[in-house]
């Protein structure tokens, strides 16, 4: 019974949180954003006291049920182990405490020292996020594009196409490696990762030792068949001593189901002959589990070049933009500063996957490995979009409104004279000035002495110049520029834009 309830909740959580990570339309975020926010490390980094209290209370009450239900990486391992349809495949093994606590200390240090990505390599939520965002999200999007093609065929707007591109080779390799290691460990030994590497598992293990309800073995009833031990994926039941290592037990309920002699029970104290009838006891446990889980849910809710044109039709080739080299990194609005992002982001990739403008991608720089950085080759940070700030569970990117977002200066535009169309091709342009949402770009005459006389343009000698022959160049008011990259993205100069954005270390409001 307990196992069934646990399993139901686990599947619901796992499916929904996976969808949250896969979804690119923003629909899931509106309903399920809280699921990412109650994850332990994100809650810790965001100083989300409510969520932290909920997880700690839950663990004090029921043990590490968090690892069996709420943690998507944990449930994924159960799923992999379940795929290997074999009974009695596990054995008790002693805890590798030196390794566990060493890893925990290193992980804590990485947070304290402000290099959150290092811990992020093994934190469960960010690991799972990375696996889903970099390996499965592209497949999900390809499937969506198939549906979009079909719906286009029927002239329906139910699905729309999205671009699928490899955002970072490094992130993909890391994700494949962690998935590979975790999958092999889960296939062979169940919860090895959770009980030796995962710092959240270790930490909650310390708490769960004190939990109110625990699995207790009634040595009198036990016939030493070892069935419970052989089916404990946490390898934490030592039947020779009839003890359970509560720091590793994830309260999955497998042992309870396996025992034919009713020797194992989830009770508040070491086994003594029960005063209640067995049925009532079971019922109470089930209700308790359900209520605890539901309560948890409630808390959490709180450019181009062509020959002269002589024929008609056809499309000019488009030269794709190259990645801009920047002196300073740009970080998304709401991230406050490079330092804040670096110390709070666990590199779960949720924002990168959610960015509808293809602006965010994982950094390959070592001091902020796989954390999001901004670049404008494929799109720009659109004024109406606040998606990354909505999805971030760790407060690495703080929630911002559309109004706030358009007033946050994350960088400023820089002009490169030699690449600019009016200079290089002697053609009028001004696209950057027209498209600047902040009104930070003005067009001024390229040549000295050219000036406006009423509606007319005149050169230094007072000769009139036809309007479409006046060459104007962009000048930037750095005080007004918010660094959104519209100018850089839309600049007709390609592969390198004539205007690009340099990031600011600390954002400011203008």
């Amino acid at each position, binding site marked *: 019974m307990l196992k069934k309830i646990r399993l139901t909740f686990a599947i619901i959580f796992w499916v929904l949180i996976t969808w949250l990570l896969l979804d690119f339309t923003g629909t899931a975020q509106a309903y399920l954003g809280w699921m990412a926010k109650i994850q332990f490390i994100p809650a810790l980094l965001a100083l989300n006291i409510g969520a932290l209290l909920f997880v700690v209370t839950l663990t004090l009450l029921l043990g590490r049920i968090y690892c069996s239900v709420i943690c998507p990486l944990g449930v994924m391992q159960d799923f992999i182990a379940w795929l290997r349809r074999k009974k009695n495949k596990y054995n008790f093994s002693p805890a590798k405490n030196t390794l566990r606590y060493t890893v925990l200390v290193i992980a804590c240090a990485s947070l304290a020292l402000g290099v959150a990505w290092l811990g992020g390599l093994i934190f469960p939520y960010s690991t799972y996020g990375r696996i889903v965002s970099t390996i499965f999200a592209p497949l999900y999007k390809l499937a969506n594009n198939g549906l979009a093609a079909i719906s286009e065929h029927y002239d329906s707007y139910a699905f729309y196409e999205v671009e699928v591109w490899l955002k970072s080779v490094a992130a993909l390799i890391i994700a494949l490696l962690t998935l590979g290691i975790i999958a092999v460990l889960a296939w062979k030994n169940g919860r090895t990762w959770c009980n030796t590497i995962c710092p959240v598992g270790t930490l909650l293990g310390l708490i769960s030792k004190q939990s109110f309800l625990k699995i207790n073995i009634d040595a009198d009833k036990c016939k030493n068949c070892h069935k419970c031990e052989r089916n404990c994926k946490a390898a934490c039941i030592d039947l020779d001593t009839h003890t359970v290592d509560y720091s590793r037990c994830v309260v999955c309920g497998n042992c309870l189901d396996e025992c034919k002699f009713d020797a194992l029970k989830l009770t508040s104290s070491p086994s003594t002959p029960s005063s209640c009838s067995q049925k009532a006891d079971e019922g109470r446990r089930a209700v308790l589990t359900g209520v605890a889980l539901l309560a948890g849910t409630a808390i959490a809710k709180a*450019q181009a070049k062509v020959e002269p044109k002589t024929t008609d039709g056809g499309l*000019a080739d488009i030269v794709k933009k190259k990645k801009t080299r920047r002196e300073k990194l740009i970080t998304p609005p709401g991230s406050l500063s490079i330092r804040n992002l670096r110390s709070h982001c666990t590199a779960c990739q949720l924002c990168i996957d959610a960015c509808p403008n293809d602006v965010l991608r994982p950094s390959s720089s070592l001091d902020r490995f796989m954390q999001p950085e901004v670049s404008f080759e494929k799109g720009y940070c659109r004024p109406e979009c606040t998606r990354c700030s909505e999805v971030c569970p760790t407060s690495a990117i703080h929630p911002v409104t559309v109004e706030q977002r358009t007033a946050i200066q994350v960088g400023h535009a820089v002009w490169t004279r030699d690449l600019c169309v009016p200079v290089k091709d002697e053609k009028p342009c001004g696209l950057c000035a027209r498209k600047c949402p902040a009104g930070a770009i003005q067009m001024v005459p390229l040549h000295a002495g050219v000036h406006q006389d009423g509606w007319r343009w005149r050169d230094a000698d007072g000769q009139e110049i036809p309007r479409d022959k006046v060459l104007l160049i962009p000048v930037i008011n750095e005080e007004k520029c918010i660094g959104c990259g519209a100018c850089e993205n839309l600049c007709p100069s390609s592969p390198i834009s004539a205007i690009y954005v340099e990031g600011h270390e600390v954002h400011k409001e203008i």
Partner: protein
Amino acid sequence: MKDITRRDFLKVSGTAAATTALASCGIKDDNADGEVDYMGHHDGPVPTDKMTYRTNPKQGDKVSLLGYGWMRLPNTKDEDGRDIIDQEQVNRLCKYALDHGVNYFDTSPAYCRGKSEESLGIALEASGYKRSDYFIATKMSNFSPSQYEFEEGKAMFERSLEYLKTDYIDYLLLHSIGGGGMNPVHQRYLDNGLLDWLVEQREAGRIRNLGFSFHGDVAVFDWAMAHHEEYHWDFVQIQANYVDWNNEEDKGRSGKYLYDELVKRKIPVVIMEPLLGGRLSKVPDHVVAHFKQRKPEDSVASWAFRYIGSKPAVLTVLSGMTYMEHLEDNLRTYSPLEPLTEEEQQWLEGETATLIKSYPTIDCNDCNYCMPCPYGLNIPAIFVHYNKCVNKGNVPESQQAANYAKARRAFLIGYDRSVPKLRQANHCIQCRECIPHCPQQIDIPREMQRIDSFVEKLKQGTL
């Protein structure tokens, strides 16, 4: 019984067939081969010998009323994913047209990325018809200043003969005069002596008829009419349709003005863009109902063809038929032509034209003359998408519009589907290179800015 029109006949026989079909339903089948013609009368075989012909008095050419415009050819993709002409399908269309009485083919060195003439040459040769069975019209399409030299023009004509596998052109046109006023006419044809040379070629028999096509500034048309005595235009190609017939704002667009001037001088008229690039067939649903209520079996397009074909001085009506179904429909309309009644004509020029003009579409005929845009935009695709949304009611005026959410989604998703992101209106740098190329005188850069600002408002939710 002889006076009965094709349509009347078909209607009668169709009704009879339908009655037979009903009577036999579920009992037995009278047809020997067991097939019943459920398609009714309208989709019966396209007649092969009923085409209406008009005679060009000059040399007695009997020209089919339906002419084939070799500009909107079906495309397929090459290995690099670029559009290339689907020559196999083009050959089929050409043969089918010839088999059903079409004998006038209109091409240009500029059409279809410069591949149209070559494609027509191949298709005509493959059809198996003799050179004397059809008429070829092509043009002096020297649009780029780099082609204004006399030698360039001469070479262009010689290349046309080569591509078309012939040693004479039946109808040669100065391509699209009128855009940008008289200046381009001087530069392209007069100052370099090219027009005089073309007149000589006519005398030598290498050009059988010399004329011009006109779009735009009516002063250029008037100049050409005033010099008729000098050049003896054998024919003139104009754009005319029921929507613009009585255009009073712009004489250059008024079919009536241009047509009457030509009739006055007994110059045969060739009609181009009878459907305005599909804008007179892809109309909003309730305009479709407006047409279908009068003649449920006839296509919307057929009205435009019947309208202009009913003008007696029209030699041929060109249609750029991309699909076999377009060709079949047009063949039916002109095999033979059922002339408009006086009342039908007034109905088209009056309430129908007013109804169509009440939709604020952009005057783009999707002719691709503006392309390629040097900055990679797909200008016609942007206009086609915009017009489609206008006609479907997906261009909301404000967020208060009843269907705002649905229309917004349809406009934005459809935009990304019809035009790749890098070819959308927000990439227009306003270089204005397209402006002289547009036969419809659309201020393309301004429209690009207008559409882009509409898109921005939809995206930002500030409409």
